[in-house]
């Protein structure tokens, strides 16, 4: 039975294996030179703690290709769900071959569990291999960027892609079983998968563990400035950077929960002039009303306000990877169970 599930899947598996080999070749060709540049420039400059120039060179050279490969890696689980998951049962129902398959001397549920195990397992292996290669290849940039919890790294490196692949595959299978047609199942898979990933990333991931809270002086913020709003000037303090951590929220707050209102600014920084209309948010040194007023005003704000940071610290990275991967895999298993049940009870 396993043999036949594999035999039907062989061609599709070969296509993806070919793509993985191509990616591996690209990584093996470009990886060592990227590592060499890192070792000779960025790693050295760190000793002298002046890395601006070195990282700029590195970014210029490798940002685009790493971003490109990362973006592709984000889509890969969805593609597996669309091209491996959705047609798996839907194609049999659509073309009528289920009448051949389900009348052999094997129970329908066993037939289906075997198919799900072979193709679902292959999905997870494919996504895992790609993630493993990408994680190795992009290491220098990850070290420079110090943003392991950022979506581009967290979602494409280590083990989360395995969870996404399991989930997308199961989503495809379930949609295929419910719709009985490949095309609508494919469309549903991509929409449902994107929706689930976006919702999870923005609403569930930040709260997988209760975050840590910390007060930070405004002077330690990485960037701050003013913007013009209809009601007057608005103070903005950029997120103070905590390397490799996941910032849930960061707000500027005074005693008793007070905030920097336009009224407060008019009162305490009367000479401060905002950026011209429609200008982007003020940045460090882009000094509306001149640098002396800008700095004086920031000093005044810093006396009464601070930044309240809510975040998931860097040392929780692996806990989060395991949590998220497990949740997606379990959701995938649940969907598979649902589709097996549906095929046994409801289909035909």
């Amino acid at each position, binding site marked *: 039975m396993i043999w036949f599930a594999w035999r*039907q899947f062989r061609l599709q598996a070969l296509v993806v294996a070919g793509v993985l080999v191509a990616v591996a070749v690209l990584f093996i060709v470009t990886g060592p030179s990227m590592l060499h540049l890192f070792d000779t420039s960025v790693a050295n400059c760190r000793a002298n703690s002046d890395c601006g120039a070195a990282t700029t060179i590195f970014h210029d050279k490798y940002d685009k290709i790493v971003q490109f490969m990362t973006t592709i890696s984000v889509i890969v689980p969805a593609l597996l769900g669309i091209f491996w998951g959705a047609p798996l049962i839907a194609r049999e129902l659509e073309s*009528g071959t289920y*009448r*051949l398959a*389900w009348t052999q001397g*094997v129970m329908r549920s066993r037939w289906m569990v075997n198919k799900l195990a072979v193709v679902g397992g292959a999905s997870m292996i494919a996504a895992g291999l790609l993630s493993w290669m990408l994680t190795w290849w992009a290491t220098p940039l990850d070290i420079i960027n110090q943003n392991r919890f950022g979506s581009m790294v967290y979602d494409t490196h280590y083990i989360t892609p395995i969870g996404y692949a399991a989930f997308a595959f199961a989503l495809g299978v379930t949609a295929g079983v419910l719709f009985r047609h490949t095309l609508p199942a494919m469309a549903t898979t991509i929409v449902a998968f994107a929706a689930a990933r976006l919702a999870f990333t923005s609403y569930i991931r930040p709260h997988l563990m209760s975050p840590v809270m910390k007060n930070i002086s405004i002077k330690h913020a990485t960037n701050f400035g003013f913007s013009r709003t209809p009601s007057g000037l608005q103070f903005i303090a950029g997120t103070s950077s905590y390397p490799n951590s996941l910032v849930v929220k960061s707000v500027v707050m005074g005693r008793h929960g007070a905030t920097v209102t336009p009224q407060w600014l008019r009162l305490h920084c009367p000479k401060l002039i905002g950026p011209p209309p429609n200008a982007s948010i003020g940045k460090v040194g882009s000094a509306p009303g001149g640098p002396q007023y800008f700095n004086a005003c920031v000093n005044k704000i810093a006396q009464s306000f601070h930044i309240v940071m809510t975040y998931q610290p860097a040392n929780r990275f692996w806990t989060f990877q395991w949590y998220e991967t497990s949740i997606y895999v379990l959701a995938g298993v649940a969907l598979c169970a649902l589709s097996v049940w549906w095929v046994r009870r409801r289909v035909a």
Partner: protein
Amino acid sequence: MTSALQATDLGKRYGRKWALNSCTLDIPTGRVVGLVGPNGAGKSTLLQLAVGLLTPSSGTITVLDERPASSAEQLGRIGYVAQDTPIYPGLSIGAHLHMGAALNSNWDAQLADRRIRDLALDPRQHAGRLSGGQRAQLALTLAIAKRPSLLLMDEPVAALDPLARREFLAILMEVVADQEVSVILSSHLVADLERVSDYLVVLAASQVQVNGDIEELLATHHRLVGSRREIDNFPDAVQVIESSHTERQSTVTVRSVDPILDPTWSVESLTLEDLVLAYMSQAEVQRRDLVRTNGGAR
């Protein structure tokens, strides 16, 4: 084992439409059963219920005294050739045979290989490139290499040209002679069934119209021709199937175990085709009456 297929008040409904309605049947083993009826009469539905692809909406069905698809062993005892003989177009003939071997515990690999050789087919050939007749032969091979006790075939020859049709049925008869297998095959053409079957089930308007041994059916059905008259004065043992009248003459198809002795009728025997057509047109008349009555009530 006494029954190949036993149905009690069996029904299958799609939405509000009954594809098969209160069907009660008891088909013995060891027969070649022709299941005949017009398109949409419920033949496919009955066969799919028998192989467990469909579940009944009402009533019960057992096949070889077991509920269809109740176990892998039960599935292994039934050979099924589905309508339009589905195959995997991307897989070779050899891969199909491997599938049969992998999925069926009683698989007879020698038989399968020999049949493919006899058909002069190349096992490496993709099944998607086979002609309709070759496809049907492949499907039949897959079904009989399981060494089934019962072979169910849903319009196996409908898509074939006359030559392929004759060849298919000839091979089927060889199989029946070689193996101890009961067969139920459906067709909307009596001619296809006449050559091979010894038992008949007529299905029309979602219901079983008549079923039984063909010789017995032919012996007990008669066509009566005589001067025009009312036809409600037959004894109870004589069942009127169909009647038609011209200005001067009445023609009645009846079922009766006893011979018709009334000298005012000239008694003719029926062909199988006549018999089937009589039941089908009777079903059609009843269906129209029903529609008319329902329409009038509205």
